């Protein structure tokens, strides 16, 4: 229903209608912001990067042909923007305050263990750049390896290998962490 609304809206957004553009931002803001937030573990920086991505979208709208194209473009640009950002950050010395992870917003509808979720978000945020984006697209966006490969211009085998290695790494690190905090293994 919403997708149909946006599908009808896209050609009109290209005619500079700010209300239509706002609708498009609202439609995709959770996806773009969450990708940035999970990747960076910093809400303020995630909003900044999400804003840049949408401004880039605004300038690019006339060349995007359909809502699917917009979605694919947003995933691709956000992923590459995040990878570029963390590569630039590696070259820049950081203050301990900047490195501190942002506390997650409380979500009353989520029944998961908040401590475990927080640990998992930390562990995902510590993965290498490409593996991190692959994990976010897999578990946040629920994309299968084929779609992730298409979204990132990456071979499917590489995506599968990132997923397998990251899951094995997370399992090990989580087992260690939980053993240390609770004294119990997984």
């Amino acid at each position, binding site marked *: 229903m919403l997708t149909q609304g946006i599908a009808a809206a896209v050609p009109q957004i290209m005619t500079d209608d*700010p209300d239509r553009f706002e609708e498009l931002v609202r439609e995709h803001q*959770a996806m773009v912001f969450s990708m940035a937030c*999970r990747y960076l573990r910093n809400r303020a920086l995630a909003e900044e990067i999400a804003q840049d991505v949408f401004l880039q979208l605004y300038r690019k709208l006339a060349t995007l042909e359909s809502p699917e194209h917009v979605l694919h473009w947003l995933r691709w640009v956000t992923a590459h923007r995040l990878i570029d950002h963390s590569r630039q950050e590696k070259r820049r010395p950081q203050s301990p305050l900047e490195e501190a992870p942002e506390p997650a917003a409380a979500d009353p509808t989520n029944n998961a263990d908040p401590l475990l979720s927080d640990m998992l978000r930390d562990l995902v945020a510590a993965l290498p750049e490409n593996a991190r984006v692959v994990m976010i697209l897999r578990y946040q966006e629920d994309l299968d390896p084929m779609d992730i490969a298409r979204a990132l211009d990456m071979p499917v085998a590489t995506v599968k290998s990132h997923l397998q290695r990251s899951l094995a790494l997370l399992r090990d690190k989580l087992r260690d962490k939980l053993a240390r905090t609770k004294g119990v293994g997984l």
Partner: protein
Amino acid sequence: MNLDDELRSALRRDNPSPDFARRVVAQAKFSAKPKKSMPRMMWAAAIAAILAVGFTAPYEYRQMKAERAASDAVLALRITAEKLNMTREKVLRIEN
């Protein structure tokens, strides 16, 4: 514990601050207008202009060089004629 489910739950989508979309639109209005793609006719006209300049420029350059060479030749002939006249006058003075 199922790690896949825990990851889905930990990485579920989250919303930015409530005024995010409005801020983006305000920024978009001030900073950048969407670029209209150039119509095909304009592309065709631009390409035709580039080709026309590309084809006519060497011809015009050759013509300009020829005109300059012709005016240089006329100047050289004038100088030669003056020298010949001066020599002729000297010869006539010696003979007389």
